[in-house]
């Protein structure tokens, strides 16, 4: 893998983590609005998968895929603005946290709470590309929890049937809110679950950004070449609560310790250092840049205006 790409993957992960840390502390200080979802530990997935797409592809990131928004070019200030209900966010104060952050100019389909609505929608985007003979790919994400929902089944069945240029990243982070995997299903191999529809499926280490990038890139390539849909199960761990208010006391401490040792950023950092791709000065610089960027973004978002209540009925219809 190209050194620039490896550095870029790392830098996006660092920016994502920096955003996330800042967000969590803002909310803890009471400077947030409503709830918010930390994605700590998921950087390798959202960044690795997001970077595998081409500029004309589209993606529907889910509530924990902050990194994907960033790599697609949505600025941190716009995202913070959305979190804070400001007029300058992509939903103009209409939708909460990482929901409703669609921007077709960036190839982003906005997320909706209802699980797993992003799946059939993204399949539809892929079908539109197929319909017009475009070499574009549509990708989305689903949690382990979301794989239990009926729409997962309907979507994968149709994706396979129509050989759609569709890529699904399954984020198996062991929990759906407070419910561990073994209380959600009798099986544990989510890639096999996807394969049963006739979809190419593979499991990767979700804390290894380069592995995620490679697997998703291969899937995107297959889709682009008309070879049909794929699913990549990326195994990771949700390192904080489901959302900001959730202390996640139900997660065994040992499990978190075990996964803390596999932190995707720390791991990748060590690999890059070992391979001589970066040195510690580069890394320090990267962190500083990220911190600067996020601090500016927060300042800008906090300063930004709320939407004018006189506009409240605007935009219901196109």
């Amino acid at each position, binding site marked *: 893998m190209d050194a620039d790409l490896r550095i870029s993957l790392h830098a996006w992960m660092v920016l994502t983590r920096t955003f996330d840390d800042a967000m969590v502390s803002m909310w803890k200080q009471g400077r947030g609005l409503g709830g918010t979802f930390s994605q700590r530990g998921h950087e390798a997935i959202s960044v690795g998968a997001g970077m595998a797409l081409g500029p004309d592809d589209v993606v529907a990131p889910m509530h924990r895929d902050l990194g994907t928004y960033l790599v697609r070019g949505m600025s941190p200030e716009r995202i913070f603005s959305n979190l804070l209900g400001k007029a300058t966010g992509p939903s103009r104060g209409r939708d909460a946290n990482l929901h409703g952050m669609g921007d077709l100019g960036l190839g982003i389909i906005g997320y909706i709470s209802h699980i797993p609505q992003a799946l059939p929608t993204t*399949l539809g985007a892929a079908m539109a590309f197929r319909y017009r003979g475009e070499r574009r790919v549509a990708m989305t994400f689903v949690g382990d929890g979301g794989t239990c929902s009926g729409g997962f089944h309907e979507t994968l069945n149709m994706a396979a049937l129509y050989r759609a240029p569709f890529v699904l990243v399954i984020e198996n982070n062991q929990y759906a809110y407070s419910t561990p995997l073994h209380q959600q299903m009798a099986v544990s191999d989510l890639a096999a679950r996807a394969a049963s529809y006739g979809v190419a499926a593979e499991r990767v280490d979700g804390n290894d950004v380069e592995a995620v990038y490679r697997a998703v890139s291969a899937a995107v390539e297959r889709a682009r070449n008309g070879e049909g849909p794929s699913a990549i199960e990326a195994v990771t761990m949700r390192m904080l609560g489901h959302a900001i208010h959730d202390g996640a006391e139900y997660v065994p401490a040992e499990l978190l310790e075990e996964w803390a040792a596999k932190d995707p950023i720390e791991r990748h950092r060590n690999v890059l250092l070992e391979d001589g791709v970066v040195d510690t000065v580069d890394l320090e610089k990267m962190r500083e840049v990220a911190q600067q960027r996020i601090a500016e973004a927060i300042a800008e978002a906090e300063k930004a205006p709320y939407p004018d209540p006189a506009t409240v009925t605007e935009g219901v219809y196109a």
Partner: protein
Amino acid sequence: MSGDQGTGGRELTYLEAIAEALSVEMERDERVLVLGEDVGGTFGGAFKVTKGLAERFGDRRVMNTPIAELGFVGMANGMALMGLRPVVEVQFADFISTAFDSIVQFAATNHYRWGGAIPWVIRAPSDGGIRSGPFHSQNPEAWFVHTPGLKVVAPATPADAKGLLISAIRDDNPVIFFEAKPLYRSVRGPVPEGEYLVPIGDARIARRGSDVTIVTYGSQLHEALAAAERLAVDGIDTEVVDLRTLKPLDVDTVLDSVARTGRVLVVHSANRNAGVGAEVAARIAEEAFMWLDAPVTRLGGLDIPIPFSPPLEDAYRPDATKIEAAVRKLVAF
């Protein structure tokens, strides 16, 4: 209010008018495609509305789907976001509930939330009176009228069926198009050829009258007109307003009529309780208060699942006889 019922010379059935609208739009606009259960191939759908389309436009534009309403309406959401104009058939309006999230949560809210337009149409063969039982007779329009962000259309004549379906396909928003299946082959009327459009959001005065107003839509329009003829024999001059669009509602046409007659009966096949007629009645009660000479009355289905057996289904549904009786009571008030 607008919309002549055309004078195209030729007459079509309600079903033929819908089929013609689909052909016209598929011919005109490559972005229009049809999908749903059994709509494709040589079969052409449970009611044969799409028959011939696959032969003419190919399987690519007339897609059979598995039994997965949530999924294929969701798929239509994504297609629409990417600029296509899917026309989805749910086999019976009764099965639209299976796709509920894809409609009321995704499609209805999306443009407001982040500006992505969802220009699809769902065609839903609705209504009963034809001994089809509780799951092939429903009129679920109230659920969707209550849901912000949708448009809801319910034509009663062949001309409106064609003109409103073309408008629905060209509309940039999700439009639910309720076809009154008892009218498919039983109603025939003049339908203008080619690109005939009836605007969404305009009611129509289907019959002019001065004594009393009936506000209705779909198959009950024909019952109301039949009742009006019988009432005319006794000198009761009934105005009949065909709403045609249920969301957005053309309240002005309704209020204007009530201002002239002072008496109003709202009628639909859907059960009365919290139905679309409740909204119509509430708007009249609030905005036409000064003109009312009698209480705003409503006639709708009973608050029960729609029964199969003829005597029960007849007891469930409004019809010309019940409308006539209600109007007589209203006029006597």
